[in-house]
């Protein structure tokens, strides 16, 4: 008899846990966007399939501002229904393909809610920057 009481209790606890862990995002926007994105034909090297499932790269677009600084924007989407955390790091290269080093070169932590799309943007540290590479990593903890 006692066992019978335990089953619905476990089911209820499971449902509550599922409900709290799966908060998804609803979005709304202009059906015919006015802005024209200049999409980048990107090359992807995926070594962490689990991260790619959680945080999928939708697209990359770039622009050059008035002072000649390259600006990039990456759209990523959490394809799961759970909140996910990750870090990313942007590397900039000059016209000879040499890495431009900066003291603030760091991994930036971000998180996305279930099914949410976010934009990550970065402006080149110098007008010498011509190329970029973005690295994504799952958070360790």
């Amino acid at each position, binding site marked *: 008899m006692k066992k019978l009481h335990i089953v619905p209790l476990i089911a209820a606890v499971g449902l509550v846990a599922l409900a709290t862990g799966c908060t998804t995002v609803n979005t709304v926007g202009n059906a015919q966007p006015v802005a024209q994105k200049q999409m980048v034909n990107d090359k992807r090297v995926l070594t962490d399939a689990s991260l790619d499932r959680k945080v999928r790269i939708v697209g990359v677009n770039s622009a050059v501002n008035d002072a000649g*600084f390259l600006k990039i924007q990456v759209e990523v989407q959490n394809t799961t229904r759970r909140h996910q955390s990750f*870090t990313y790091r942007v590397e900039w290269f000059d016209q000879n393909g040499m890495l431009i080093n900066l003291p603030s070169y760091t991994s930036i932590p971000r998180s996305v809610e279930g099914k949410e799309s976010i934009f990550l943007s970065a402006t080149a540290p110098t007008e010498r920057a011509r190329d970029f590479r973005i690295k994504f990593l799952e958070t360790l903890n």
Partner: protein
Amino acid sequence: MKKTLLLSSLAALLFQAGCPTQSAYVTDQPNRYIVSGKINIQDFDQAADSMINSLNDNWIGQGKLKSAAEGEPAILAISRIKNNTGQQLDTDMLTKKIRVALNRTGKVVTTTTLGLGGAEDPLAADKQKEGEFFADQKHTRGFDYTLSGKIIEDQARAGNTRQSAYIFQLSLTSKDGLAIWEEEQKIVKQGTRASVGF
């Protein structure tokens, strides 16, 4: 006998593999830095990176940068960066990264002879004064902009979870006294104990 030897060597191997070294270098891997509730180097790196992005995007990138001497880089002086946290901080951990990044754009240089509370480089300041004296000049070129700001801390707790929020605020002021660029970066950390990662 052989079995004992084999087992003991296996155990020794496992012991070696399982034991971490006492100390190790962690180079350019912020993901592996220790994270604590206190303000740390990742926070400074992240805040500086965000500020540099904003400066490049909203100030230099928009063509708002003006130099007193045309064709030459604008001169930046570092003003007061207030530490309103309960921790002892060296605000150079933030400003130096921004200075280096601005310097590498080739459009901004920082003066080390003019500053709040005295020159950062007294020898260079003496040399500058000597040059002004012999050239019979009152002043050589002054700064075009000043950088000031504040670091604020907010602590909260719910049960075992502690939350530390750090707010980095910076303003760039022109010679006219107008804040031509301002930015705020918020970093919030939650946890029950220190860990490794971001």
